[in-house]
């Protein structure tokens, strides 16, 4: 999820904390001094909102969303060559790791730079080959200082006989 301007906002942090069932007042500007609000450890995942090309968000005016509408599959668009995450040959999230260099706080405008990491394969015990792909996302602030380094690993199942 690359983003040039990931604006970190207290209200977004509050909504994110609610969504993970976290009542810690440190994440809620209505229950603590707003100047002391910090983001929970997995909050940078929500930089997806600030990635203009993020393929798992319906785009305004676009006809190509692959969720159900008039048909169960929507319009089956081209989703940019990326997986839809399902058993249609897509990938799933296998691992996620974060390293924290500086706190993520409201007012920050972070840049998220994505690069490919390693790729490796494993035989699945249920048949087929598991293909693992690593992606590194560096979140840096306006001074160019590292804030968070995220490493995600996605896994895709390639059925035996498929090429």
């Amino acid at each position, binding site marked *: 999820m690359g983003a040039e301007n990931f604006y970190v906002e207290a209200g*977004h942090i509050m*909504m*994110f904390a*609610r*969504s*993970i*069932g*976290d009542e*810690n007042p*440190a994440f809620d500007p209505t229950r603590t001094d707003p100047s002391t609000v*910090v*983001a*929970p*450890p*997995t909050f940078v*995942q*929500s*930089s*997806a*909102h600030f*990635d203009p090309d*993020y393929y*798992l*968000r*319906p785009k305004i005016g676009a006809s190509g969303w*692959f*969720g*159900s509408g008039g048909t*169960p*599959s*929507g319009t089956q668009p081209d989703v940019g060559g990326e997986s*839809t*995450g*399902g*058993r*249609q040959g897509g990938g*799933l*999230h*296998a*691992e*996620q*790791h*974060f*390293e*924290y260099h500086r*706190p993520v706080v409201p007012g920050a405008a972070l840049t998220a730079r994505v690069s490919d990491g390693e790729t490796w394969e494993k035989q699945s015990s249920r048949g087929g080959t598991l293909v693992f792909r690593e992606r590194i996302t560096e979140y840096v602030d306006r001074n160019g200082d590292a804030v968070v380094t995220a*490493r995600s690993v996605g896994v895709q199942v390639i059925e035996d006989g498929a090429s």
Partner: protein
Amino acid sequence: MSRSIHDLTVGDIVELRLVDDLKRTTIVQYAGASGDFNPLHTDEVFATEVAGYPSVFAHGMLTMGMTGRVVTDTFGVDSIASFGGRFTAQVFPGDSLTAVLTVDAIDTDATTVSVVTRNQRDEVVFSGHARIRADQPT
């Protein structure tokens, strides 16, 4: 609520109930907050009829986000140096999750903990580690 790492010893355990009877709406709430609107998580019709799953299922990052509570409730947010792990089973609506944090090592510069989240059938759904910096005042 948070404690100094100086209060802990190796082998100490902190257990936290994360969710009872996970609701589809909670998964949708996470989709909205995180920005990941994958219909596998938000669209029962797509998940069952197109993708062939028994129902929608939770984002791995919802499970990891909830699991992070056992770390931040124990140590606060500011001193966490790293947090990561593997998603080992899918989490479906109706599941109930419990996280267990175990103190693995206490060094002069950091404390290392393992964090394992299980569902109501005692299956591990997330397994990971966190490092907490020892920069808190004594």
